């Protein structure tokens, strides 16, 4: 089959992923090579900087200084606590909602999804400003403690967490499962706990990872509300000790990349079984992707 784009098609390659576009190999190698370099070089530079600092020779001093810094651990602990709170609250808010929507009100599924994307429309700096003015008079136990961060992070992470669970619930036949449970005499709570939740494992895992990664990386709201979380402390260090801050960043990057890659792979494998055209990978990574818009 002669293709009009690029080099003539090899008869064997027609059925592959590249059904339409024939693009020269040189073009592909150059594009992917140059762009790949742009993504790898900062990682290499960080690694080098963190091991040598500005002096000659390899040393681990940046890392040992960092790990022996008590504030590193306090702020990490604080962020982990906020993360756990956010994860639990997110699950409590989202699971019943998505299950309900698919079970009772599938018509409003799209509306709900749109609502969950609203936080992308309002920049987090603006939300913070609004939080200060509208909740400023709330009791100190909420506004004066990181509780307010967890409460807001649930909203800010919603565009990723909601979609993840929504597509997990979508994959189940909720009506049948619930009715089967009911006809066996189980209460709704029992059905949710023993039937639906086990089936939603990977969706829940996705929410846990996405919400947690979001909480560890979030800077804007935490710093503007004057809480010294992990990311805020990183910036404080960066103002005086560059090599420690870069070591810190490298650790933070690697520790967000690992769980995110796991989730991406898990989701693409799951989705690959169910959907054609490899679209599954995309949706899973899309919802992960949108994290950026908030992690900012």
């Amino acid at each position: 089959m002669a293709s009009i784009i690029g080099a003539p098609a090899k008869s064997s390659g027609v059925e592959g992923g590249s059904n339409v576009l024939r693009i020269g190999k040189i073009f592909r190698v150059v594009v992917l090579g140059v762009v790949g370099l742009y993504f790898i070089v900062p990682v290499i530079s960080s690694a080098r900087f963190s091991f040598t600092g500005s002096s000659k020779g390899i040393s681990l001093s940046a890392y040992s200084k960092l790990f022996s810094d008590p504030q590193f651990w306090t702020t990490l602990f604080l962020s982990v606590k906020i993360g756990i709170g956010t994860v639990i609250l997110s699950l409590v808010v989202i699971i019943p909602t998505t299950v309900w929507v698919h079970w009772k009100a599938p018509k409003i599924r799209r509306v709900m999804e749109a609502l969950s994307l609203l936080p992308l429309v309002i920049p987090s700096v603006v939300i913070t400003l609004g939080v200060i003015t509208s909740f400023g008079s709330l009791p100190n136990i909420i506004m004066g403690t990181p509780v307010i961060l967890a409460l807001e992070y649930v909203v800010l992470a919603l565009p990723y967490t909601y979609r993840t669970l929504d597509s997990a619930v979508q994959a189940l036949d909720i009506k049948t499962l619930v009715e089967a449970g009911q006809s066996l005499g189980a209460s709704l709570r029992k059905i949710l706990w023993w039937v639906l939740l086990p089936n939603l494992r990977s969706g829940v895992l996705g929410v846990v990872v996405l919400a947690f990664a979001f909480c560890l990386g979030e800077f804007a709201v935490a710093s503007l509300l004057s809480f010294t979380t992990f990311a805020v402390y990183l910036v404080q260090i960066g103002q005086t000790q560059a090599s420690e801050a870069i070591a810190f960043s490298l650790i933070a990057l690697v520790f967000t990349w690992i769980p995110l890659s796991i989730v991406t792979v898990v989701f693409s494998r799951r989705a690959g079984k169910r959907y054609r055209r490899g679209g599954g990978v995309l949706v899973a990574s899309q919802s992960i992707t949108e994290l950026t818009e908030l992690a900012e």
Partner: protein
Amino acid sequence: MAVPSLGENRESQSGFGGNGASEPQKGSAGMSVARFLRYGNWRRFMGVLPFVLYLGVFLLIPAITVVVDAFKGDSGNFTLSNFSVGFSGVYFESFKNSIQLSLFSALIATFVGLLVALAIVASPGRTLRAVVTAGSGVFANTGGVPLAFSFVATLGNFGLVAELLTKIGYNPYNHGFSLYSVLGLTIVYEYFLIPLMVLIMIPPIDALRKEWVDAASSLGASRIQFWRYIGGPLLAPPLLAGFLVLFTDAFAAYATAAALTSGTIPIVPIQIGSLISGNVLVGHAHLGNALGAGMIGVVIIAAIMYGLVQRRASRWLR
């Protein structure tokens, strides 16, 4: 409604999500309020009430407060003076910088992301594709503070690349370059914008149907004619929609810029941040609100355009 289409069309773009086939369709459009109430359908929506309330309290109330307070003077009176200050002088410059930064970084990322997506779809190997897609998902998520510092290690005064360039006789810092400028930020923002664009563009390129290419080629179209009349018009809407997503993303970004420049670069989010942190202008306690309202305005314009473009895009790519 611009916002709902954000979700709706991303999904239809990627060609799955059930296409709504499983949803009962009885009386969806023509249902009147009276019928709605009579049949007790409202009960069906009770289950989502907690969610909607949560969103209302922690998202809508703050957002509305910002906009409402933007029209308040220091004594609570109605005034437009916050806006007249907010859109003049240094704050006007900030809006200009922010829009310029978001436009350029989104443009570059759109172009590069398109090239990468084309290269990926054209590659025969499935492994490469899986790796790049997964990698894009992860890298697109690498915004924020760590990203800023890894670029300090790369292009900062003592960064690896800056050093290498100096060794071959071109110290970028002697030629007006600075990582801590709008140009520097543009380079850094590409790190999460390009992967985002790759993820956005792979499905529409995938969806260019083989039949169309075959039809074009059997009718004797040249490669240029194909792109001019078929491929181009088909890819233009998703490309434009993607551009708007990237624009919004870059426009709202705060952490990277704050960490990189210690909050000194004059862009709108940073200005709002410094107003929050206590650098309040006397007589304009609600200036930050006006800037915030301005940001919301810009984003809403982008979202409306996105909705319009997406409606067009989803016509073909099903």
